[in-house]
């Protein structure tokens, strides 16, 4: 039995339009999505009318501070919304609901964006507001774009590292990081190496890793279904400081005797982190007896991670890997619009007083009313 998604359809309107606002980290994203009436399916796909994004970039060696990130979002949000509406060729009053990231994420940036959402909702005639869990946004957009109906989801970003599987109207967390997120780990190592943050530190680490040859020994810290990364970061940060700091300590690869380079460090860090991620994903697949993997979150655009996941899934009976390109896997507004519209179509909306954002918002706290498989 599939869930009726049209119980709240407006009479005489054969589609829905939703505006999505994302700003939980350093990316400000605004997206406009359109659903036709009826079930979403391969011949009734959600349509992306616009998907605009502006990223707050900091100089090399610097992370993004909440205060400046919120300032970036505050001063750009109106211009980005205007562009999204123009691209989508719609007016504010065409919109059925305004969806915003309610959490998890950084407090101040979330706040900047939700103020914009509340203002528009009242400006365009009391349009309903829908609070969206950032991770659920990634999952639902990934499912819609790739067509994967019930994948195990690996959510890997600057702020999150979780292995998630759907069961009984919840997205359950099967395994997760016990300390820092993988994106955060890669970004902080990029800062240690003073790698540029343009377009993204993780992207630049990936390019360097491609040139890496020697693998250095790093601790492998998987604990059951969970993993921990702060120890690895501490270890490789220390090594990098010794090699490139005042000491300029020369480190040599045992087997070839050749000197270890920064590229080798990036290569080794990726190999150990991604091996751990693929292992806990495979463990969740075996546990729920699934053979579909969907990677979401900014780190999901890393080709080496996708390649390793593909190698793992090929070993499972007609295993299938799904990933989205940088338009969707990196934080964006369209995913918030899509997930928010699904909530709206099952009657889940937020009164203004319930639109307070929260930094801690666990994926399994959300009732997935639009699924009942």
């Amino acid at each position, binding site marked *: 039995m599939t869930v009726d998604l049209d119980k709240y359809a407006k009479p005489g309107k054969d589609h829905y339009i939703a505006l999505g606002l994302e700003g*939980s980290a350093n990316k400000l994203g605004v997206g406009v999505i359109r659903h036709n009436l009826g079930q979403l399916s391969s011949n009734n796909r959600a349509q992306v009318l616009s998907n605009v994004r502006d990223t707050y970039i900091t100089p090399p060696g610097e992370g993004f501070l909440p205060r400046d990130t919120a300032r970036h979002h505050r001063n750009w949000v109106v211009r980005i919304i205007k562009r999204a509406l123009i691209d989508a060729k719609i007016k504010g009053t065409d919109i059925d609901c305004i969806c915003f990231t309610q959490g998890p994420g950084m407090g101040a940036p979330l706040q900047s964006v939700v103020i914009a959402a509340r203002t528009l909702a009242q400006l365009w005639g009391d349009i309903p507001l829908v609070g969206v869990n950032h991770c659920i946004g990634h999952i639902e957009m990934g499912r819609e774009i790739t067509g994967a109906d019930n994948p195990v989801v690996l959510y890997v970003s600057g702020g999150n590292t979780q292995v998630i599987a759907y069961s009984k109207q919840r997205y359950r967390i099967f395994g997760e990081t016990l300390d820092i997120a993988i994106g955060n780990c890669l970004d902080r190592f990029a800062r240690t190496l003073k790698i540029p943050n343009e377009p993204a530190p993780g992207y630049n680490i990936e390019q360097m890793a491609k040139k890496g040859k020697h693998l250095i020994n790093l601790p492998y810290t998987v604990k*059951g279904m969970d993993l921990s990364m702060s120890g690895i970061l501490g270890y490789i940060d220390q090594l990098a400081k010794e090699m490139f700091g005042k000491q300029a300590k020369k480190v040599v690869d045992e087997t070839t005797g050749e000197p270890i380079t920064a590229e080798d460090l990036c290569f080794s860090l990726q190999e150990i982190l991604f091996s751990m991620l693929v292992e806990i994903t*495979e463990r969740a697949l075996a546990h729920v007896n699934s053979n579909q993997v969907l990677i979401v979150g900014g780190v999901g655009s890393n080709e080496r991670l996708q390649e390793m996941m593909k190698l793992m899934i090929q070993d499972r009976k007609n295993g299938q890997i799904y990933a989205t390109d940088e338009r969707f896997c990196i934080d964006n507004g369209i995913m918030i619009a899509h997930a928010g519209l699904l909530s709206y179509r099952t009657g889940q909306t937020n009164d203004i007083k319930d639109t307070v954002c929260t930094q801690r918002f666990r994926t399994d706290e959300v009732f997935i009313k639009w699924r009942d498989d």
Partner: protein
Amino acid sequence: MTDRLVSQIQNHLPNIPVQVVSQGAEALVFQTSVHPYIDKPYLKNQGKYIIKYRPSKPYRHPTIDASITKNRTIGEVKFMNKLTKLGINAPSVISADYNRGIIWMEFLGTELTNGDISSLKNWLWYLEKNESKEKCLNDQVQSVCRKVGKLIGKLHLNDMIHGDLTSSNIILEDFEPALIDFGLSSYSGLSEDKAVDLYVLERAILSTHSVFSDHYNQWLLEGYEEIHKEFSKQGGTKKYVETYRKLEDVRLRGRKRSMLG
């Protein structure tokens, strides 16, 4: 896929006939009728042995793969050997090849009348399918569940954590329970880790044996408490109270702590 791995084990162990018993995320479990070096070993079952094989993972860098396979295999043999030394029912180790991720071990369990292996899961399923409610909750079932509780209690009293307790990882050898599959096992004295171990089993029994799971789980905990009382001199009762309190916390928040977004 499994055939690629079966051929891999075949060339590691030539002339040893193997059948796949199960395939988890990390390892394959085979059954064979050939003992590696002696026909009449000092084991519960002769003529049936288990081979656990950790194949190399193509996605992992060869150096990482080799060291993980080796460490995990050594870790599991160490854990099983310690159980044997402590007299906690578990398969005895026959032989091991750490570099290739192979462990030969004792085959535990017998065939139930329906041909399934006598794991706690299969036995309870068999009763639930073919027997009356009284039979499913009779003294024998009660005593087996209590013995399972005592077995896990012994494990925890030695600060050992199984890590993947399910009703299929408990084998009955003429109604005496034994633990198997130590791929996720570890050592910890923390009552939190022991509570999570119990919680995972409780959830597994709830989902696999939902009809009478309340009774099973209750008897199991009674056995767990009983063994702790027997060791009250070594602080067993205090440990039980602490672990039980943590179990109530874990039940509330689920396995996962709340995480910063």
